[in-house]
């Protein structure tokens, strides 16, 4: 079993690849970042017009009927182009939550996403929560038909260019309980919400958010009250599969650049690619990339499955891809030599993105532990894959 793209999906991939190659050079990316911005509004509008933003949405939400495979295609290409734009947050995560939202609200916002007018950021992490999605101290209490949010959300990627936030908050229970978690959708400019914007090491924008008696209406609740956690897990699993695909795009470029560089760089009177120790290192990088692709396929297909089976596959993929990000990224820099440590070549920028992806939504240790505990909770299934 494996993913084989339909003719339509292959054409879609070619289209995305061509657009990115023609319009999203590393140079324009670095200029954008240097100017203090965290995204390119024109690129986003083009994404909307080309149908990229709606590609992974079901038709009833105003999309084109695609799903996880379309997300995989787009994310891998975005990785290859080192794009900054918040597709993950908006289409994958936002789209994932909106399936569970109030129908009218969902349909309106999905139209906004597809047209490029709405962008979403996902506020889940907290300063003391590490990678535990249930470690939520942010509180939402019910008051006169509304909810009042208080708390501090950490490292919210894309908040500074978002129009809407999806926020996890505790409506009952205690810290790290999986019960008592609810999910809310709110516009970004609510009174009482303070934002501290900053940059991630890879140039993406992020913010810490401080909620001080922020009032949202009843309709802002996504999914059932107190029982939002399974939705959070499901959406985060789909986000992990998507960033695995992005990592594949990033790592392919790191490998390609390294192979090309070592073929042209001469030392001791010959291309350094002639040296066996370098060849073998690049083979190990290749194996990491190929297995990352395999694991991305596995995780993407597993998104259709339920609970533990899905999470087990997704965590396995994240472990393998996380390790690959580190190995391929660090060795790409190493094999470039001194120039690899500067910001003059693409390699250091891709390396920094790989470093961020490695730990995004959980480090290797986090997912290895999660995988192992799913394995011991269930008796070992007949087939491991």
């Amino acid at each position, binding site marked *: *079993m*494996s*993913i*084989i*793209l339909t003719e339509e999906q292959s054409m879609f991939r070619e289209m995305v690849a061509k657009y990115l190659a023609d319009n999203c050079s590393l140079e324009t990316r670095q200029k954008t970042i240097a100017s203090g911005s965290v995204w390119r509004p024109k690129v986003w509008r083009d994404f909307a017009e080309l149908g990229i933003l709606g590609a992974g949405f079901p038709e009833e939400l105003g999309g084109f009927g695609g799903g996880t495979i379309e997300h995989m295609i787009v994310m891998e290409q975005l990785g290859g182009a080192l794009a900054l734009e918040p597709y993950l947050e908006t289409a994958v995560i936002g789209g994932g939550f909106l399936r569970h939202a109030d129908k009218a609200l969902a349909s309106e916002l999905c139209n906004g996403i597809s047209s490029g007018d709405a962008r979403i950021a996902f506020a889940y992490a907290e300063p003391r929560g590490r990678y535990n999605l249930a470690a939520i101290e942010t509180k939402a209490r019910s008051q006169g038909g509304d909810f009042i949010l208080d708390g501090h959300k950490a490292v919210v990627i894309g908040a500074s260019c978002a129009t809407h936030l999806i926020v996890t908050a505790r409506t009952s229970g205690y810290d790290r309980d999986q019960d008592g978690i609810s999910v809310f959708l709110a516009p970004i400019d609510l009174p009482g919400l303070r934002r501290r914007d900053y940059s991630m090491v890879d140039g993406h924008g992020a913010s810490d958010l401080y909620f001080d008696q922020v009032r949202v209406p009843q309709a802002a609740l996504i999914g059932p009250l107190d029982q939002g956690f399974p939705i959070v897990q499901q959406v985060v699993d789909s986000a992990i599969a998507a960033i695995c695909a992005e990592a594949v795009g990033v790592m392919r470029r790191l490998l390609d650049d390294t*192979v090309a560089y*070592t*073929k042209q760089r001469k030392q001791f009177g010959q291309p350094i*690619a002639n040296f*066996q120790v370098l*060849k*073998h290192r*690049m*083979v*190990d990088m*290749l*194996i990491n990339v*190929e*297995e990352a*692709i*395999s*694991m991305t*396929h*596995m995780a993407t297909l597993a998104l259709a499955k339920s609970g533990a089976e899905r999470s087990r596959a997704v965590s*396995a993929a994240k*472990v*393998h891809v996380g390790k690959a990000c580190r190995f391929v990224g660090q060795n790409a820099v190493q094999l470039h030599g001194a120039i690899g440590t500067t910001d003059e070549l693409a390699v250091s920028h891709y390396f920094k993105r790989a470093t961020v992806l490695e730990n995004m939504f959980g480090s290797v240790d986090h997912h*290895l*532990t999660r*995988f*192992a505990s799913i*394995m*011991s909770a269930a008796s*070992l299934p*007949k*087939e*491991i*894959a």
Partner: protein
Amino acid sequence: MSLDDVAQDGTFRAEVRRFLDEKFDPELRAMAARQGGLFAEPELVNRWWKILYDKGWITPAWPVEYGGTGWTPSQHRIFLVECAEAGTPILPGLGTKLCGPAIMRFGTPEQKEYFLPRLRSGEHTWCQGYSEPGAGSDLASLQTRAIRDGDDYIVNGSKIWTTNAHHANWIFLLVRTSTEGKPQTGISFLVAPLNLPGITVKPIKSMSGEHELNQVFFDNVRIPVANLIGRENDGWTVAKAVLEDERGAVSQSQRLEAAVLQTRNVSLYETADDGGSLAEDSAFKLKLAELQIDVMAIQWTDNRMAAESGISPSVAQALPNMQKLRASETRQRLNELRVEALGVYGAVDQRKGLGIEASEPPIGPDYGLTAMVEYLESRARTIFAGASEIQRNIIARAALGL
């Protein structure tokens, strides 16, 4: 993949399980549980071979016209996984997996008609004469000479690391028929019965205590020219095709799955330092989890290879090498962890408890009997069929143009 396929697979799996329940009887199971070598002992091999042959499942991967089953890739996988989990004897596949396909591809109609049925029935059992004392990783430097004399070649030289030569009755071998040009161009591929005058087989004992390997000497051995497979001096082409098949055959990712289960089962019975189950020991648990994930990555790469999904042509060429490399290294780590799991009994010499004719019961728990011998045996996995370092050279050239 449609739902129908899934249902069909379920039916097929049930059929395989029924077959194994019925034919892999307690006596055979008990014999198989005491096997420590790369291949099972001849008595067990012969019995299991006949059962598979009678069922029509001895060469499932062969083309149907030659006696294959025509299974889907997923059915092949199910068969292998079920066999691995039941612990069926490991049969030497040198004839059916390596020599047979080479004869199908390069043999004459007469050769096919003569050899293929005998390969399948087990009448001919095979060994592989490739390496020589002076030609290991650098296989093309081989020196065993074959000089044409009428309708025969006269062969002189020796082959080494010849697995199974002491149980086989036929050998396929690479010989030098010309010293002109590049080393690769003067090689020919011959097959010969091992009872020809002038052939002697000498045992080489492995560090595990098993006898798997041999050196085979050729002293003025007359091999008929009719036994040449492919063209004279074009044996390198045949040899490479066999090597590719061999890499596929030794990867055996399905056996990796079984090795994970085996290691996990040991850990369920073993006690950790704190008195709990070793399976719940935090350090052990994570090590096993990591290996399990490696096995998943190897299997999903197999899946991608079978479906030709998202693989560039240059990478496709190198994938069997990649899989051989990864499967052999992962298998070693699993065997290593199983020994580790056994704690104080891990390093006991169990030789007297191994084999059909075992003279003593296992020392320590039954499930620890084969762990060390398999660990020692598995050190060869990253050496035979092209050492890991050679695999990396090949992958660098084929996939990266290095």
